[in-house]
């Protein structure tokens, strides 16, 4: 008679004793959770023993369970090693989940609004325990995922695994590649720093080029939520990043995975006869069962991959965070994210519509339909010379285009800007101005000149600086003797006054010996000017350090040179190979000046970024 009016666990205890009743209860729960494997089955599997029950309980989870119904119950032995698949497909999926988990952590601390997004980033960095760690993981995972997915596509191409019957699997794969790119791209904007705003502005402006104009304009409006990237644009990119694109990605991942079950993994080409597909007819001795071999292997790879990522973000990689997004200031050297550099490079070839819209569309379309073009039955390399050639040509072309997309290619800045930018730039793209990492105590207030380093012998430095001071008292050589000619020093003072640096007099000295790093920078400044002497004729530079507040210095970098004639970005030379000078109405050279300045606080700690 039951103690309760219905059969219960208590009856079991009465009947079998506590220990046995509990064990059987647990065993049953485990069997239900695993959809078919009880404790004994799991123990056997993990010990590498053969199953003792029939029917084989290790196949049950594939038949009855949700999670494993998307995985084949056994693999061919030839596809379980590192070669030929390098685990790239598996790694891609790993990153989908990895990014989802780290992303949800970050979502908790993030609001998609230009007013607070950047402040949220600062809070994640300064006020959320493990905030920087998770952000670094998310960013590194994103870059790695883009890379892995691309490599996965290349591997599939080179082993011709896209051939019948897997044409459609390949097509969904191409869609997944571009969804991955777009997922990464849409996340780029969210920190709302300068890097984000301008990389995405460049990317999004391509949509504007879509012909006809009415389509382009409206597409741009839809994407950005206004003519400029602002509050609406940020919200839209956020929703794309956390909702729309991941949803599509999961759908296509499901399809992609289901196709693997239907068609099996394609075998290394040499193991099959030409035109045959034996993936679904795996001989018994070649079968490697998912449980336990593939499953333990995958769990191990989760551990190993995550460990590698954790080590990388702990010691070698930090996600960049530049200064607050500012639509008014375009930073020098702005580029799209690296995986879209090829489009930016293509844009430099000419027409925006042709190279920015038609070319990428054709490129993607070509990839999508490739299995239906290349229908030759053989997967052997020897039989695919034309296909391999096309593949390598496209790869090379993409690499060249990506190189052309870099800021260094085809974008000419004037020499003075380039030299000064090199010294003062804010940290961006793993670079920063050479003045910034100088230790604060070495930044002794004073006026220093490149003339100190223009002499051969270091012993002459002192007199070179004295001569420079004397030179500043006089007008330029061609004006000397004229009554109203302004001394060069006064021109410099007047110029600096317009830069809100009111100085009463100039007095240059040699760089103090206690400031070796400052010395190096000024010396390098001189070398840079020498390298660019055709453009910056008779140039000299000065570095002026002033105290602003007790723990704050201002550093002005200034270049003065004689203007030369520049046509189409190139200096014009006369018959003797000398650069042609620009001259005023009296035939005198024209002096030009330019300067940039930065402020350095004692605690701002500019270090070279890890890996830079």
């Amino acid at each position, binding site marked *: 008679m039951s103690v309760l009016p219905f059969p219960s666990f208590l009856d079991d205890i009465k009947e079998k004793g506590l220990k046995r009743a509990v064990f059987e209860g647990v065993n049953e729960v485990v069997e239900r959770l695993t959809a078919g494997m009880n404790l004994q089955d799991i123990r056997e599997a993990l010990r590498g023993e053969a199953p003792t029950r029939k029917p084989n309980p290790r196949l049950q989870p594939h038949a009855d369970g949700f999670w494993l119904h998307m995985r084949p119950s056994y693999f061919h032995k030839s596809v379980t090693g590192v070669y030929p698949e390098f685990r790239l497909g598996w790694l891609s999926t790993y990153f989908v989940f990895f990014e989802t988990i780290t992303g949800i952590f970050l979502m908790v601390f993030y609001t998609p609004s230009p007013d607070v997004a950047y402040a949220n980033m600062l809070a994640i960095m300064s006020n959320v325990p493990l905030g920087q760690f998770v952000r670094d993981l998310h960013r590194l995972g994103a870059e790695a995922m883009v890379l892995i997915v691309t490599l996965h596509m290349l591997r599939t191409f080179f082993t011709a695994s896209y051939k019948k019957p897997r044409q459609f699997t390949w097509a969904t794969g191409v869609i997944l590649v571009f969804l991955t790119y777009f997922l990464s791209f849409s996340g780029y904007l969210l920190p709302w720093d300068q890097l984000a705003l301008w990389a995405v502005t460049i990317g999004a402006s391509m949509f504007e080029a879509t012909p006809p104009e009415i389509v382009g304009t409206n597409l741009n409006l839809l994407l950005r939520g206004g003519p400029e990237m602002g509050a609406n644009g940020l919200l839209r990119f956020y929703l794309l990043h956390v909702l729309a694109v991941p949803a599509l990605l999961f759908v296509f991942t499901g399809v992609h995975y289901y196709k693997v079950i239907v068609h099996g993994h394609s075998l290394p080409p040499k193991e099959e006869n030409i035109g045959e597909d034996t993936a679904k007819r795996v001989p018994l001795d070649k079968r490697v069962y998912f449980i336990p071999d593939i499953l333990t292997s995958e769990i*191990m790879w989760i551990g190993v991959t995550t460990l590698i990522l954790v080590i990388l973000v702990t010691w070698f990689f930090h996600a960049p965070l530049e200064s607050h997004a500012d639509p008014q200031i375009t930073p020098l050297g702005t580029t799209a994210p690296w995986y879209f550099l090829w489009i930016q490079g293509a844009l430099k070839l000419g027409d925006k519509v042709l190279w920015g819209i038609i070319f990428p569309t054709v490129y993607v379309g070509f990839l999508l339909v490739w299995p239906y073009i290349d229908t030759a039955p053989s997967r052997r390399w020897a039989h695919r010379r034309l296909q391999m050639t096309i593949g390598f040509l496209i790869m090379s072309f993409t690499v060249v285009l990506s190189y052309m997309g870099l800021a260094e290619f085809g974008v000419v800045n004037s020499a003075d800007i380039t030299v000064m930018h090199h010294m003062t730039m804010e940290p961006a793209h793993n670079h920063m101005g050479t003045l910034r990492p100088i230790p604060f105590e070495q930044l002794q207030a004073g006026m220093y000149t490149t003339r100190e380093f223009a002499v051969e012998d270091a012993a002459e430095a002192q007199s070179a600086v004295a001569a420079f001071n004397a030179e500043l008292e006089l007008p330029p050589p061609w004006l000397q003797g004229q009554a109203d000619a302004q001394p060069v020093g006064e021109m410099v003072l007047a110029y600096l006054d317009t830069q809100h640096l009111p100085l009463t007099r100039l007095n240059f000295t040699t760089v103090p010996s206690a400031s070796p790093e400052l010395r190096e920078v000024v010396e390098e400044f001189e070398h840079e000017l020498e390298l660019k002497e055709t453009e910056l004729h008779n140039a000299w530079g000065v570095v002026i350090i002033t105290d602003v507040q007790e723990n704050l210095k201002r550093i002005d970098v200034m270049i003065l040179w004689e203007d030369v004639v520049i046509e189409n970005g190139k200096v014009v030379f006369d018959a003797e190979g000398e650069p042609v000078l620009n001259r005023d109405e009296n035939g005198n050279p024209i002096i030009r000046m330019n300067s940039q300045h930065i402020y350095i606080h004692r605690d701002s700690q500019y270090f070279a970024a890890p890996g830079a």
Partner: protein
Amino acid sequence: MFNLQRLLVEKIEHRILVGTVSFLAIMAIVGWIAINEGGRMAAFERQYSARSIERGAGLFANNCSTCHGVDGRGVVGRAPGLNSPYLFGHDFLAELNAEQAQLESERNNASTTAERLTEIEARLTEIEAEKQVIINQINTALANTGGSYNPENPSRLTNLGWGGGLYNFVYTTLVHGRPTSSAYWPQPMAAWAQTAGGPLRNDQLADLTNYILNWDKGDDWTLEDLYAVRQFPIVPADPTTIVASDVETVGTDAAAIVAELGNYQGDPQNGMALYTGALACAGCHLNASVAPLTEGTWTRVNEARLADPAVQALGITDGVHYLVDSIVAPNDYVVSGYPAGIMPQNFGDRLSYQDMADLIAYLQSQDGPAQ
């Protein structure tokens, strides 16, 4: 051959071992990071506020230094100093005041002996004298400075009755500007926040505020810092305390004023004080892009302005008449290149005949070559 794949992953027990070790290593590293998070977050905070000050310095130079001075010590007649003990409420009498308060409480204590009381009284007299010395020193040193500073009420926030902290005071001032200040400065302070129609984002205002507050020297402010301030805030008159003055103001009829001025002797020294101080003319007339320069005014009036047909059309034929008309009715004739309506229209209600005579005398002394 050494085969990593075979060694590590071919046997199931190897896989379990490698996987377990990896997970343990991850947990160890994350634990190690977690332990150090406090220090890392503090370091980031410090680094970030330092960079915020750097950006603020750039913004200040571009947007604020024209009126508040490159060094933040204010520009006479235009805007008050921010790099000033007054803004940060530093009290130069604090030590003496503290001693005084302590002695006074001791004096009021019934248990204090008569002998001690005499000592206290003597010391209190001394303190009063020492305080007076400092106050006199400060008042003498600041005699020619614009605005007002009272050593006994040395905190800007207290004098304004501001309830919040200094950060919020500076930040809110930046957000909204000082629209009413046009009543006592030549130009009002503009609203700087984008939310209030200005050019700067909130994070930039925070940078600027951090930079301004970085002037604080805490207890290390010196009297030299105080004397270096060129302009203190002008305290606007409380409208309820204003009584009708019995001094007759000049009104706006230039010809009548000129006729009356014959009865007054102008003092150029006092005119200069009015020009650079109370009337704050110099705030605009020191910058040729805002208003004609002070220097060379008298030469310019006689050589250029009186020759202008537009001036002759007003029936103005001599320099004094021109100057008076320009002061009391600035829009009658506006020098080409400058917009009308910039100069305040109410000087006729503010100037007495003596003030006007002094001003004219000062301007007549500006007969150097016009730059």
